[in-house]
Protein backbone atom coordinates (compact mmCIF):
# COMPACT_ATOMS: atom_id res chain seq x y z
CA UNK A 1 0.00 0.00 0.00
CA UNK A 2 1.54 3.35 -1.03
CA UNK A 3 1.10 6.55 0.93
CA UNK A 4 -0.01 9.74 -0.75
CA UNK A 5 2.17 11.75 1.64
CA UNK A 6 5.25 12.77 -0.32
CA UNK A 7 7.20 14.26 2.60
CA UNK A 8 10.25 12.37 3.74
CA UNK A 9 9.09 10.01 6.49
CA UNK A 10 11.59 8.05 8.55
CA UNK A 11 11.16 4.31 8.01
CA UNK A 12 10.28 2.00 10.87
CA UNK A 13 13.68 0.37 10.58
CA UNK A 14 15.45 3.75 10.89
CA UNK A 15 13.40 4.70 13.93
CA UNK A 16 14.02 1.36 15.62
CA UNK A 17 17.76 1.78 14.99
CA UNK A 18 17.55 5.24 16.56
CA UNK A 19 15.82 3.74 19.59
CA UNK A 20 18.67 1.29 19.94
CA UNK A 21 20.94 4.34 20.22
CA UNK A 22 18.73 5.75 22.98
CA UNK A 23 16.86 8.31 20.85
CA UNK A 24 13.69 9.16 22.80
CA UNK A 25 12.23 11.30 20.01
CA UNK A 26 12.32 8.26 17.69
CA UNK A 27 10.28 6.43 20.30
CA UNK A 28 7.80 9.31 20.30
CA UNK A 29 7.45 9.09 16.52
CA UNK A 30 6.80 5.36 16.60
CA UNK A 31 4.28 5.86 19.39
CA UNK A 32 2.43 8.47 17.33
CA UNK A 33 2.44 6.11 14.36
CA UNK A 34 1.27 2.89 16.03
CA UNK A 35 -0.24 3.61 19.47
CA UNK A 36 -3.78 3.73 18.02
CA UNK A 37 -3.68 0.22 16.53
CA UNK A 38 -2.00 -1.24 19.63
CA UNK A 39 -4.49 0.49 21.93
CA UNK A 40 -7.61 -0.39 19.90
CA UNK A 41 -6.52 -4.05 19.71
CA UNK A 42 -5.98 -4.09 23.49
CA UNK A 43 -9.37 -2.43 24.15
CA UNK A 44 -11.15 -4.94 21.88
CA UNK A 45 -9.61 -7.95 23.65
CA UNK A 46 -9.51 -6.71 27.24
CA UNK A 47 -12.76 -4.72 27.11
CA UNK A 48 -11.34 -2.13 29.50
CA UNK A 49 -9.61 1.13 28.57
CA UNK A 50 -7.55 1.45 31.75
CA UNK A 51 -6.07 -2.03 31.41
CA UNK A 52 -5.55 -1.39 27.69
CA UNK A 53 -3.46 1.71 28.57
CA UNK A 54 -1.29 -0.45 30.83
CA UNK A 55 -0.78 -2.95 28.03
CA UNK A 56 0.01 -0.15 25.57
CA UNK A 57 2.70 1.07 27.95
CA UNK A 58 4.11 -2.45 28.36
CA UNK A 59 4.30 -3.14 24.62
CA UNK A 60 6.16 0.10 23.85
CA UNK A 61 8.44 -0.30 26.86
CA UNK A 62 9.40 -3.73 25.53
CA UNK A 63 10.27 -2.15 22.19
CA UNK A 64 12.35 0.50 24.00
CA UNK A 65 14.19 -2.03 26.15
CA UNK A 66 14.79 -4.57 23.41
CA UNK A 67 14.60 -2.95 19.95
CA UNK A 68 16.86 -5.68 18.54
CA UNK A 69 13.97 -8.13 18.95
CA UNK A 70 12.33 -6.50 15.94
CA UNK A 71 13.99 -7.68 12.75
CA UNK A 72 12.90 -5.49 9.84
CA UNK A 73 13.95 -8.26 7.43
CA UNK A 74 11.18 -10.48 8.84
CA UNK A 75 8.26 -8.07 8.51
CA UNK A 76 7.00 -4.58 9.24
CA UNK A 77 6.48 -3.03 12.65
CA UNK A 78 2.68 -2.60 12.70
CA UNK A 79 1.75 -6.30 12.42
CA UNK A 80 4.65 -7.18 14.71
CA UNK A 81 3.36 -4.86 17.44
CA UNK A 82 -0.20 -6.08 16.87
CA UNK A 83 0.85 -9.72 17.22
CA UNK A 84 2.66 -9.00 20.49
CA UNK A 85 -0.27 -6.97 21.81
CA UNK A 86 -2.77 -9.69 20.94
CA UNK A 87 -0.72 -12.49 22.48
CA UNK A 88 -0.04 -10.56 25.67
CA UNK A 89 -3.66 -9.40 25.96
CA UNK A 90 -4.90 -12.99 25.65
CA UNK A 91 -2.37 -13.98 28.35
CA UNK A 92 -3.79 -11.25 30.59
CA UNK A 93 -7.37 -12.19 29.73
CA UNK A 94 -6.85 -15.83 30.59
CA UNK A 95 -4.59 -14.96 33.53
CA UNK A 96 -1.77 -16.98 32.02
CA UNK A 97 1.93 -16.49 32.34
CA UNK A 98 3.31 -14.86 29.18
CA UNK A 99 3.61 -17.55 26.52
CA UNK A 100 5.10 -15.57 23.69
CA UNK A 101 8.54 -14.02 23.77
CA UNK A 102 8.81 -10.84 21.77
CA UNK A 103 11.52 -12.32 19.58
CA UNK A 104 9.34 -15.30 18.64
CA UNK A 105 6.95 -13.25 16.51
CA UNK A 106 7.78 -13.46 12.83
CA UNK A 107 5.40 -12.18 10.18
CA UNK A 108 5.30 -12.28 6.43
CA UNK A 109 2.83 -9.58 5.40
CA UNK A 110 4.15 -6.24 4.29
CA UNK A 111 1.40 -3.61 4.48
CA UNK A 112 3.27 -0.29 4.34
CA UNK A 113 1.25 1.81 6.78
CA UNK A 114 3.21 5.01 7.19
CA UNK A 115 0.31 7.47 7.56
CA UNK A 116 -3.02 7.69 9.35
CA UNK A 117 -4.76 7.78 5.95
CA UNK A 118 -3.17 4.43 5.10
CA UNK A 119 -4.36 2.96 8.39
CA UNK A 120 -7.93 4.17 7.91
CA UNK A 121 -8.09 2.84 4.34
CA UNK A 122 -6.58 -0.48 5.34
CA UNK A 123 -8.88 -0.89 8.36
CA UNK A 124 -11.89 -0.12 6.13
CA UNK A 125 -10.85 -2.84 3.70
CA UNK A 126 -10.56 -5.43 6.47
CA UNK A 127 -13.91 -4.40 8.02
CA UNK A 128 -15.61 -4.64 4.62
CA UNK A 129 -14.18 -8.13 4.16
CA UNK A 130 -15.46 -9.20 7.58
CA UNK A 131 -18.89 -7.71 6.86
CA UNK A 132 -19.12 -9.79 3.67
CA UNK A 133 -18.27 -12.95 5.60
CA UNK A 134 -21.12 -15.22 6.86
CA UNK A 135 -21.86 -14.33 10.50
CA UNK A 136 -21.14 -17.85 11.75
CA UNK A 137 -17.68 -17.74 10.18
CA UNK A 138 -16.92 -14.23 11.42
CA UNK A 139 -17.99 -15.19 14.97
CA UNK A 140 -15.75 -18.26 14.99
CA UNK A 141 -12.77 -16.26 13.73
CA UNK A 142 -13.28 -13.51 16.32
CA UNK A 143 -13.72 -15.99 19.15
CA UNK A 144 -10.37 -17.54 18.27
CA UNK A 145 -8.52 -14.26 17.72
CA UNK A 146 -10.06 -11.83 20.22
CA UNK A 147 -11.07 -14.27 22.97
CA UNK A 148 -8.19 -16.73 22.56
CA UNK A 149 -10.49 -19.76 22.62
CA UNK A 150 -9.30 -23.16 21.40
CA UNK A 151 -11.22 -24.94 18.66
CA UNK A 152 -12.67 -27.34 21.24
CA UNK A 153 -13.89 -24.42 23.36
CA UNK A 154 -15.42 -22.76 20.30
CA UNK A 155 -17.14 -26.02 19.33
CA UNK A 156 -18.56 -26.34 22.86
CA UNK A 157 -19.70 -22.70 22.88
CA UNK A 158 -21.33 -22.71 19.44
CA UNK A 159 -22.48 -26.32 19.22
CA UNK A 160 -20.77 -26.68 15.83
CA UNK A 161 -18.69 -29.80 14.97
CA UNK A 162 -14.91 -29.52 15.41
CA UNK A 163 -14.31 -30.10 11.69
CA UNK A 164 -16.63 -27.21 10.77
CA UNK A 165 -14.79 -24.89 13.18
CA UNK A 166 -11.45 -25.82 11.62
CA UNK A 167 -12.69 -25.25 8.09
CA UNK A 168 -14.33 -21.92 8.93
CA UNK A 169 -11.22 -20.58 10.64
CA UNK A 170 -8.94 -21.53 7.77
CA UNK A 171 -11.17 -20.22 5.02
CA UNK A 172 -11.73 -17.02 7.04
CA UNK A 173 -7.99 -16.37 7.31
CA UNK A 174 -7.54 -17.07 3.59
CA UNK A 175 -10.34 -14.60 2.79
CA UNK A 176 -8.51 -11.93 4.80
CA UNK A 177 -5.33 -12.70 2.85
CA UNK A 178 -7.25 -12.18 -0.36
CA UNK A 179 -8.59 -8.84 0.92
CA UNK A 180 -5.03 -7.67 1.51
CA UNK A 181 -3.98 -8.36 -2.07
CA UNK A 182 -7.01 -6.64 -3.68
Amino acid at each position, binding site marked *: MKTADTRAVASDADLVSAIASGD*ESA*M*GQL*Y*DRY*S*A*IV*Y*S*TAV*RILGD*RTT*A*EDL*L*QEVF*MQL*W*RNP*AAFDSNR*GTLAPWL*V*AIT*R*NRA*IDWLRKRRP*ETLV*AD*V*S*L*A*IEPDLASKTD*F*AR*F*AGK*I*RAMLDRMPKTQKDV*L*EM*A*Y*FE*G*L*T*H*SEIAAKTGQPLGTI*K*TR*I*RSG*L*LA*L*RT*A*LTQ
Partner: protein
Amino acid sequence: MSVHDQFAEDLALHALGALAGQEKETLEKHLEECSHCRGELQQLQSDMTLLAFSTMGPVPPPKSRKRLLRAIARERGAQVTVPKRSAWWLLVPYVVSTALIVVAAFLWKESRSLNRTLANLERRHAEMEKQLRVAQDLVNTLTSPESKHITLAPVKALPQPQGKAYYLSSSGHLIFLANNLAPLLPDKVYELWLIPSTGSPIPAGLFQPDSHGAATVVNPPLPIGIEAKAFAITIEPAGGSPAPTSQPIMLGAA
Protein backbone atom coordinates in the same frame (compact mmCIF):
# COMPACT_ATOMS: atom_id res chain seq x y z
CA MET B 1 -4.34 -35.57 -0.63
CA SER B 2 -0.72 -34.47 -0.02
CA VAL B 3 1.01 -34.50 3.38
CA HIS B 4 0.71 -30.69 3.52
CA ASP B 5 -3.06 -30.75 2.82
CA GLN B 6 -3.47 -33.06 5.77
CA PHE B 7 -2.18 -30.30 8.10
CA ALA B 8 -3.75 -27.28 6.35
CA GLU B 9 -6.62 -26.71 8.79
CA ASP B 10 -4.54 -27.46 11.87
CA LEU B 11 -1.99 -24.87 10.71
CA ALA B 12 -4.68 -22.18 10.73
CA LEU B 13 -5.74 -23.15 14.25
CA HIS B 14 -2.12 -23.24 15.39
CA ALA B 15 -1.53 -19.73 14.03
CA LEU B 16 -4.34 -18.51 16.28
CA GLY B 17 -3.11 -20.54 19.26
CA ALA B 18 -6.42 -22.43 19.07
CA LEU B 19 -4.98 -25.93 18.61
CA ALA B 20 -4.47 -28.14 21.67
CA GLY B 21 -3.64 -31.67 22.81
CA GLN B 22 -2.44 -34.47 20.58
CA GLU B 23 -3.22 -32.57 17.37
CA LYS B 24 -0.94 -29.74 18.48
CA GLU B 25 1.88 -32.15 19.33
CA THR B 26 1.57 -33.98 16.01
CA LEU B 27 1.61 -30.71 14.06
CA GLU B 28 4.59 -29.30 15.96
CA LYS B 29 6.52 -32.49 15.22
CA HIS B 30 5.68 -32.15 11.53
CA LEU B 31 6.69 -28.47 11.55
CA GLU B 32 10.16 -29.37 12.78
CA GLU B 33 10.71 -31.26 9.55
CA CYS B 34 8.63 -29.37 6.97
CA SER B 35 9.79 -25.95 5.77
CA HIS B 36 6.75 -25.68 3.46
CA CYS B 37 4.34 -25.87 6.39
CA ARG B 38 6.53 -23.52 8.49
CA GLY B 39 6.23 -20.94 5.70
CA GLU B 40 2.46 -21.41 5.51
CA LEU B 41 2.18 -21.02 9.31
CA GLN B 42 4.07 -17.74 9.14
CA GLN B 43 1.73 -16.54 6.38
CA LEU B 44 -1.36 -17.52 8.42
CA GLN B 45 0.01 -15.71 11.48
CA SER B 46 0.28 -12.64 9.30
CA ASP B 47 -3.25 -13.11 7.99
CA MET B 48 -4.66 -13.24 11.50
CA THR B 49 -3.09 -9.92 12.52
CA LEU B 50 -5.29 -8.33 9.84
CA LEU B 51 -8.24 -8.96 12.16
CA ALA B 52 -6.78 -6.45 14.61
CA PHE B 53 -7.12 -3.68 12.04
CA SER B 54 -10.91 -4.09 12.17
CA THR B 55 -10.76 -2.67 15.73
CA MET B 56 -9.35 0.72 14.63
CA GLY B 57 -11.28 3.52 16.34
CA PRO B 58 -10.40 4.09 19.99
CA VAL B 59 -7.30 6.23 20.52
CA PRO B 60 -5.24 6.34 23.70
CA PRO B 61 -5.55 9.46 25.89
CA PRO B 62 -2.72 12.04 25.61
CA LYS B 63 -1.55 11.20 29.12
CA SER B 64 -0.48 7.74 27.90
CA ARG B 65 2.16 9.29 25.65
CA LYS B 66 3.50 11.45 28.48
CA ARG B 67 3.52 8.44 30.80
CA LEU B 68 5.54 6.40 28.32
CA LEU B 69 8.10 9.13 27.66
CA ARG B 70 8.45 9.76 31.42
CA ALA B 71 9.10 6.06 32.01
CA ILE B 72 11.71 6.03 29.25
CA ALA B 73 13.45 9.11 30.68
CA ARG B 74 13.44 7.49 34.10
CA GLU B 75 15.09 4.36 32.71
CA ARG B 76 17.76 6.38 31.01
CA GLY B 77 18.44 8.29 34.22
CA ALA B 78 18.65 11.38 32.04
CA GLN B 79 17.58 13.83 34.71
CA VAL B 80 21.05 14.72 36.08
CA THR B 81 21.85 18.38 36.92
CA VAL B 82 25.19 19.65 38.27
CA PRO B 83 25.14 22.65 40.65
CA LYS B 84 27.82 25.32 40.20
CA ARG B 85 30.69 25.43 42.70
CA SER B 86 33.18 28.22 43.25
CA ALA B 87 36.25 26.12 44.01
CA TRP B 88 37.55 23.80 41.30
CA TRP B 89 38.38 21.02 43.75
CA LEU B 90 34.76 20.83 44.76
CA LEU B 91 34.10 19.62 41.20
CA VAL B 92 36.36 16.61 41.64
CA PRO B 93 33.60 14.29 42.93
CA TYR B 94 31.41 15.28 39.98
CA VAL B 95 34.18 14.73 37.47
CA VAL B 96 34.75 11.30 38.99
CA SER B 97 30.98 10.62 38.93
CA THR B 98 30.77 11.67 35.29
CA ALA B 99 33.69 9.42 34.43
CA LEU B 100 31.98 6.55 36.25
CA ILE B 101 28.75 7.22 34.35
CA VAL B 102 30.67 7.19 31.05
CA VAL B 103 32.32 3.90 32.02
CA ALA B 104 28.97 2.50 33.14
CA ALA B 105 27.36 3.55 29.86
CA PHE B 106 30.18 1.89 27.94
CA LEU B 107 29.81 -1.29 29.99
CA TRP B 108 26.03 -1.17 29.51
CA LYS B 109 26.48 -0.93 25.75
CA GLU B 110 28.99 -3.78 25.81
CA SER B 111 26.57 -5.83 27.89
CA ARG B 112 23.79 -5.27 25.35
CA SER B 113 26.08 -6.35 22.56
CA LEU B 114 27.13 -9.47 24.49
CA ASN B 115 23.48 -10.25 25.23
CA ARG B 116 22.69 -10.11 21.53
CA THR B 117 25.62 -12.39 20.75
CA LEU B 118 24.51 -14.77 23.49
CA ALA B 119 20.98 -14.85 22.10
CA ASN B 120 22.35 -15.71 18.63
CA LEU B 121 24.49 -18.50 20.05
CA GLU B 122 21.56 -19.90 22.01
CA ARG B 123 19.44 -19.88 18.87
CA ARG B 124 22.15 -21.71 16.94
CA HIS B 125 22.60 -24.19 19.77
CA ALA B 126 18.87 -24.94 19.86
CA GLU B 127 18.90 -25.50 16.07
CA MET B 128 21.81 -27.94 16.35
CA GLU B 129 20.13 -29.79 19.21
CA LYS B 130 17.02 -30.15 17.09
CA GLN B 131 19.04 -31.59 14.19
CA LEU B 132 20.78 -33.98 16.60
CA ARG B 133 17.43 -35.17 17.94
CA VAL B 134 16.21 -35.91 14.41
CA ALA B 135 19.41 -37.86 13.67
CA GLN B 136 19.09 -39.78 16.96
CA ASP B 137 15.48 -40.64 16.14
CA LEU B 138 16.56 -42.04 12.77
CA VAL B 139 19.35 -44.14 14.31
CA ASN B 140 17.06 -45.33 17.08
CA THR B 141 14.40 -46.40 14.57
CA LEU B 142 16.98 -48.45 12.68
CA THR B 143 18.79 -49.98 15.68
CA SER B 144 16.30 -50.18 18.57
CA PRO B 145 15.55 -53.76 19.70
CA GLU B 146 11.89 -52.69 19.82
CA SER B 147 11.97 -51.62 16.19
CA LYS B 148 10.13 -54.03 13.89
CA HIS B 149 11.79 -54.84 10.55
CA ILE B 150 9.27 -55.85 7.96
CA THR B 151 10.02 -57.09 4.48
CA LEU B 152 7.31 -56.50 1.93
CA ALA B 153 7.00 -58.84 -1.07
CA PRO B 154 4.79 -58.54 -4.11
CA VAL B 155 1.38 -60.18 -3.80
CA LYS B 156 1.66 -61.72 -7.21
CA ALA B 157 4.85 -63.66 -7.59
CA LEU B 158 6.91 -60.96 -9.26
CA PRO B 159 10.38 -61.60 -7.96
CA GLN B 160 12.16 -58.27 -8.29
CA PRO B 161 10.35 -55.55 -6.26
CA GLN B 162 11.16 -55.44 -2.57
CA GLY B 163 10.39 -53.08 0.29
CA LYS B 164 11.62 -52.88 3.87
CA ALA B 165 9.85 -50.93 6.61
CA TYR B 166 11.49 -50.02 9.94
CA TYR B 167 8.80 -48.90 12.33
CA LEU B 168 8.95 -47.80 15.98
CA SER B 169 5.39 -47.51 17.28
CA SER B 170 6.39 -45.84 20.57
CA SER B 171 7.67 -42.77 18.70
CA GLY B 172 5.68 -43.10 15.46
CA HIS B 173 8.90 -43.13 13.41
CA LEU B 174 8.97 -45.03 10.13
CA ILE B 175 11.68 -45.57 7.55
CA PHE B 176 10.74 -47.36 4.34
CA LEU B 177 13.20 -48.45 1.64
CA ALA B 178 12.18 -50.04 -1.65
CA ASN B 179 13.90 -51.15 -4.82
CA ASN B 180 13.19 -52.73 -8.18
CA LEU B 181 9.86 -50.95 -8.38
CA ALA B 182 8.19 -50.61 -11.75
CA PRO B 183 7.85 -47.02 -13.07
CA LEU B 184 4.34 -45.52 -12.97
CA LEU B 185 2.36 -43.40 -15.36
CA PRO B 186 2.62 -39.67 -14.52
CA ASP B 187 -0.91 -39.58 -13.04
CA LYS B 188 -0.21 -42.41 -10.61
CA VAL B 189 1.76 -42.67 -7.38
CA TYR B 190 2.76 -45.40 -4.95
CA GLU B 191 1.17 -45.01 -1.51
CA LEU B 192 2.43 -46.73 1.64
CA TRP B 193 -0.15 -47.78 4.25
CA LEU B 194 0.18 -48.68 7.92
CA ILE B 195 -2.45 -51.33 8.67
CA PRO B 196 -3.24 -51.16 12.40
CA SER B 197 -4.43 -54.06 14.53
CA THR B 198 -7.85 -52.48 14.50
CA GLY B 199 -9.32 -49.83 12.28
CA SER B 200 -8.69 -48.56 8.77
CA PRO B 201 -5.35 -48.33 6.96
CA ILE B 202 -3.43 -45.13 7.76
CA PRO B 203 -1.63 -43.24 4.94
CA ALA B 204 2.12 -43.50 5.54
CA GLY B 205 3.58 -41.56 2.62
CA LEU B 206 3.61 -41.19 -1.17
CA PHE B 207 6.58 -41.99 -3.38
CA GLN B 208 7.78 -42.41 -6.94
CA PRO B 209 10.69 -44.72 -7.74
CA ASP B 210 13.79 -43.19 -9.30
CA SER B 211 15.23 -44.34 -12.62
CA HIS B 212 16.69 -47.43 -10.88
CA GLY B 213 13.36 -48.33 -9.30
CA ALA B 214 14.48 -47.26 -5.79
CA ALA B 215 12.41 -45.16 -3.37
CA THR B 216 12.45 -44.09 0.29
CA VAL B 217 9.93 -42.69 2.78
CA VAL B 218 11.36 -41.21 5.99
CA ASN B 219 9.25 -40.30 9.00
CA PRO B 220 5.88 -39.56 7.38
CA PRO B 221 3.42 -37.91 9.80
CA LEU B 222 1.93 -40.79 11.80
CA PRO B 223 0.04 -40.91 15.09
CA ILE B 224 2.17 -42.17 17.99
CA GLY B 225 1.58 -45.53 19.66
CA ILE B 226 -0.25 -47.30 16.83
CA GLU B 227 0.63 -51.03 16.72
CA ALA B 228 1.09 -52.12 13.12
CA LYS B 229 -0.38 -55.40 11.93
CA ALA B 230 1.13 -54.97 8.49
CA PHE B 231 2.35 -52.51 5.90
CA ALA B 232 1.06 -52.42 2.33
CA ILE B 233 1.58 -50.50 -0.88
CA THR B 234 -1.09 -49.57 -3.39
CA ILE B 235 -1.06 -47.59 -6.62
CA GLU B 236 -3.15 -44.44 -6.24
CA PRO B 237 -4.00 -41.41 -8.36
CA ALA B 238 -1.38 -38.62 -8.23
CA GLY B 239 -1.70 -36.75 -4.94
CA GLY B 240 -2.57 -39.96 -3.05
CA SER B 241 -5.80 -41.12 -1.46
CA PRO B 242 -7.10 -40.94 2.14
CA ALA B 243 -8.04 -44.66 1.87
CA PRO B 244 -6.78 -47.36 -0.52
CA THR B 245 -8.64 -47.39 -3.83
CA SER B 246 -6.93 -50.46 -5.25
CA GLN B 247 -5.70 -53.85 -4.12
CA PRO B 248 -2.22 -53.89 -2.49
CA ILE B 249 0.64 -54.72 -4.84
CA MET B 250 2.97 -55.34 -1.89
CA LEU B 251 2.19 -56.45 1.64
CA GLY B 252 4.24 -57.32 4.70
CA ALA B 253 3.03 -58.51 8.10
CA ALA B 254 4.62 -56.84 11.12
